[in-house]
């Protein structure tokens, strides 16, 4: 099990590194999407199944597509980009690697349990976290309003 987690972690890290190193913007975005998916798999492998599924659904499915569209709409004919701050990026990936690899090596306790089940997250949302839950709707509302105004400005 630990070996599976290690393999996934390495895949996530390598693709995170490739995000920084690849010259092509679309390649970077695709590697980023792949590492999002890998993080989802990491969640699944420690038993946070709901979190893993929504990581794949939201980050690879929605945010990833939005990112690709963003690149498409802003790119000119030349597709390659000149990298600046590559080295600080590599340092950041190293730190991320520590954050991801350290727990997957040092974990000794049996993971899983029922905490990550969708029902329990739902119960938590509707009891202790009710106020934050309602606030999320306001945040999403402001996102819609912001998006509407951005879109309108682009139209005219």
């Amino acid at each position: 099990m630990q070996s599976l987690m290690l393999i996934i972690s390495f895949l996530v890290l390598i693709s995170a590194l490739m995000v920084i190193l690849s010259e092509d913007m679309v390649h970077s975005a695709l590697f980023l999407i792949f590492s999002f998916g890998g993080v989802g798999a990491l969640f699944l492998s420690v038993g946070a199944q709901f979190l893993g599924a929504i990581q794949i659904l939201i980050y690879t499915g929605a945010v990833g597509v939005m990112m690709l569209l963003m690149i498409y709409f802003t790119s000119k004919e030349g597709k390659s980009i000149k990298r600046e701050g590559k080295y600080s990026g590599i340092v950041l990936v190293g730190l991320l690697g520590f954050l991801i690899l350290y727990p997957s090596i040092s974990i000794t306790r049996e993971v899983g349990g029922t905490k990550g089940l969708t029902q329990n997250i739902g119960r938590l949302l509707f009891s202790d976290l009710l106020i934050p839950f309602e606030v999320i709707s306001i945040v999403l509302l402001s996102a819609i309003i912001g998006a509407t105004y951005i879109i309108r400005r682009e139209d005219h």
Partner: protein
Amino acid sequence: MGWITLISSWLPPLLFGVAGAAICIILMMPGKFIRPNNPNPNKNIPYECASKPTMEAVGQRSVKYFRYAILFVVFDVEVIFLYAWALIAEEIGLIGFIELSFFILVLLLGLAFAWKKRALEWG
């Protein structure tokens, strides 16, 4: 639920995905030996209605699609919370439903706003 159960429930989906990738490669293989390969500079021009392409493909864009992408992300996040509610709807009863209706109502306000500001219009 320990690691064994986790593995046994997530290994088949993983294997299905690997099998899907494998079948693509297997289907590509036999053609390697029989298909022709006649490269030709005219063949390499991007396919267009019999005329030579005049511009790069990537330069042209219609930004309309992007607005739907933003709205999609917002509503996708909303749906996720609905899944969490759906599993315990019967358990938390009417109070929970009223709390959820408030959540949906705020988002419906957002939808109505976007609609009013013509963000959902195509043209």
